[in-house]
């Protein structure tokens, strides 16, 4: 393929002089790359707020009974931890950060289809995030319903649920508009010669994700509006005392929130799919199967929400039906894992930090996925529902999956984004510490969950204390690794060695551009003639 670069004098997007300078040049930018960085600074900031809240929970669990906080404070902390991590970190994480930066570049475009809408989405994200944080400091007290806002408790508790749900509503709009933008971008902005089936696989995953964002998020939007109306006007949508149906809330909530899990994990899978062929210097195995499995996950993922509701009082027929569908959705996920492993087979493997994180992702995602099958089965689910087992499974999927894929992606693409390299040795050490810390933190939760430790309790019987202490130590090891990783990345981005245009030997379009790219990426639209993963 031709790269379309070289005729116009090169000025990177970071040095480009527009109408404004300084902070205003960022706040008014419509460049997808700068908007991506603004998302990343927001996501990383809120991530560390969520980490601190998570650590306070681990400290609380060092001893049975009250250690550092009362029960109601603990309820507020786990709710805020969940809202921040889900709505402000994980959902926008890979899609808004790396999707914004690399989707247009990977398909050979100059920007997304609607740059103004893109900036507006970021403002919605920041507005929603600020509201969510402010809700924690309201006079009524932080919301204590958990991030799931289950009715009728959420429609009757005296805490600041309305502000938190309004925040989630606004964040949802940001997600819808980003999804809309990405769908149109993929349809309309692909370079000449780039058909759907020679598009790189990260854009494929973003495309599938965007459909979920566009179609599922309005459901949570209207559900939260119904919840607010229930609180304000006592309408009786969900409260049995008013003639409502609390299971209806759970249906509506999970019709969005289960597909939302795929909003979190699909772009993660896409990033991993870019990284593995690069560090194996080998063509991706099963390109079409991986591309179509993204669509299959997005499609079937819409129909499995009921496995969160086996103990809610849902009908027996619905339970076995949802169980069947849940097992079906495991198939396309497994297809991806098999293809990643087969890509590595006989590859020229280079154990650089992005690949270490990608390997960690596969290991942790397999544990999260297989324990998900236990939860998809009605018989085992009813035994471990609402226990620490679910907490462990969820974190293996979301943190071990999306989180480690985010770390893989930032280590992979940072040289392109900032034009500088980080310290590889420190990054490798941090990756190993993070992997060890993560497993020490979450694996014991599987064990005590099976033994009956409920989730969302600040207290527990004394026999769980050794596992809780072990888990808390893992939390601090992980936090240390995260600080080391971020310090190394920030130092690299600010003052690291200048990065070459293609430090890893990648074959996709971003590596044909200078590091960092210019404002409009390509001086001329590249002409695509080959498969994106052509390693000769």
């Amino acid at each position, binding site marked *: 393929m031709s790269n379309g670069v070289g005729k116009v004098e090169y000025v990177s997007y970071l040095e480009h002089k527009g109408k404004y300078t300084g902070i205003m040049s960022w706040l008014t930018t419509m460049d997808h790359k700068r908007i991506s960085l603004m998302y990343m600074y927001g996501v990383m900031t809120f991530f560390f707020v969520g980490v601190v809240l998570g650590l306070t929970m681990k400290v609380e669990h060092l001893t049975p009974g009250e250690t550092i906080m009362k029960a109601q404070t603990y309820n507020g902390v786990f709710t805020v931890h969940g809202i921040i991590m889900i709505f402000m970190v994980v959902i926008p994480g890979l899609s808004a950060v790396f999707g914004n930066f690399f989707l247009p570049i990977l398909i050979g475009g100059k920007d997304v289809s609607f740059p103004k809408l893109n900036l507006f989405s970021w403002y919605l994200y920041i507005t929603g995030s600020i509201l969510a944080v402010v809700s924690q400091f309201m006079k009524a007290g932080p919301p204590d319903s958990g991030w799931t806002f289950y009715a009728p408790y959420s429609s009757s508790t005296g805490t600041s649920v309305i502000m938190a749900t309004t925040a989630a509503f606004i964040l949802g709009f940001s997600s819808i508009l980003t999804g809309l933008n990405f769908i149109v971008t993929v*349809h*309309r902005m692909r370079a000449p010669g780039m058909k759907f089936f020679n598009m790189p696989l990260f854009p494929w995953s973003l495309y599938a994700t965007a459909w979920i964002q566009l*179609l599922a998020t309005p459901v949570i939007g209207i559900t939260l509006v119904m919840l607010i109306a229930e609180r304000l006007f006592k309408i009786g949508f969900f409260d049995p005392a008013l003639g409502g149906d609390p*299971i209806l809330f759970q*249906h509506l909530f999970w*019709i969005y929130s289960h597909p939302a899990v795929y909003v979190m994990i699909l772009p993660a899978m896409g990033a991993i799919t870019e990284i593995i062929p690069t560090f194996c210097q080998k063509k991706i195995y099963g390109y079409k199967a991986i591309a179509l499995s993204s669509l299959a996950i997005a*499609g079937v993922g*819409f*129909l499995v929400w*009921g496995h969160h509701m086996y103990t809610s*009082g*849902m*009908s*027996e*027929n*619905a339970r076995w*039906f*949802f169980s069947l569908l849940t097992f079906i959705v495991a198939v396309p996920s497994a297809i991806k894992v098999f293809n990643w492993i087969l890509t590595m087979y006989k590859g020229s493997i280079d154990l650089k930090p992005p690949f270490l994180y990608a390997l960690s992702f596969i290991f942790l995602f397999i544990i999260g996925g297989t324990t998900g099958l236990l939860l998809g089965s009605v018989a085992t689910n009813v035994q471990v529902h609402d226990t620490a087992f679910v907490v462990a499974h969820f974190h293996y999927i979301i943190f071990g999956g999306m989180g480690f894929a985010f770390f893989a992606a930032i280590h992979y693409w940072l040289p392109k984004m900032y034009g500088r390299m980080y310290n590889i040795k420190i990054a490798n050490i941090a990756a190993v510490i993070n992997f060890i810390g993560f497993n020490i933190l979450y694996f014991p939760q599987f064990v005590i969950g099976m033994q009956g430790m409920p989730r969302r309790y600040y207290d527990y019987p004394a026999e769980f204390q050794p596992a809780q202490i072990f888990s808390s130590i893992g939390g601090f090891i992980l936090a240390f690794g995260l600080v080391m990783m971020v310090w190394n990345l920030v130092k690299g981005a600010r003052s690291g060695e200048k990065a070459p245009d293609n430090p890893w030997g990648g074959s996709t379009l971003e590596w044909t551009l200078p590091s960092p790219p210019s404002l409009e990426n390509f001086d001329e639209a590249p002409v695509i003639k080959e498969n994106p993963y052509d390693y000769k």
Partner: protein
Amino acid sequence: MSNKNAHAVEHSGTDYMLLGKILVLLMFFTFATITITELDFGTLTLTVALLIAGVKSYFVIAYFMHLKHEGLLLKILVISVFILYILIVLITLIDYYYR
């Protein structure tokens, strides 16, 4: 020919008379939606209301949003969305009918 020009040519023959007729049809269906609330269809009341809303959606999407002039891929995508929403409603009803 650029995409923009192709789009303009496609729509150069817009039949405003037809759009006017569809507008009248939509107003008729809106009136029908209000009217049926006065009639008792028993358990089918909601189904009838949704059917009318579905027909209205078709006319809006096909004519006012120009889906009739778009390629097969976009038509398949929009139809898939409707099938998905029907599936979601049907699956939810499995719970309600058997609870």
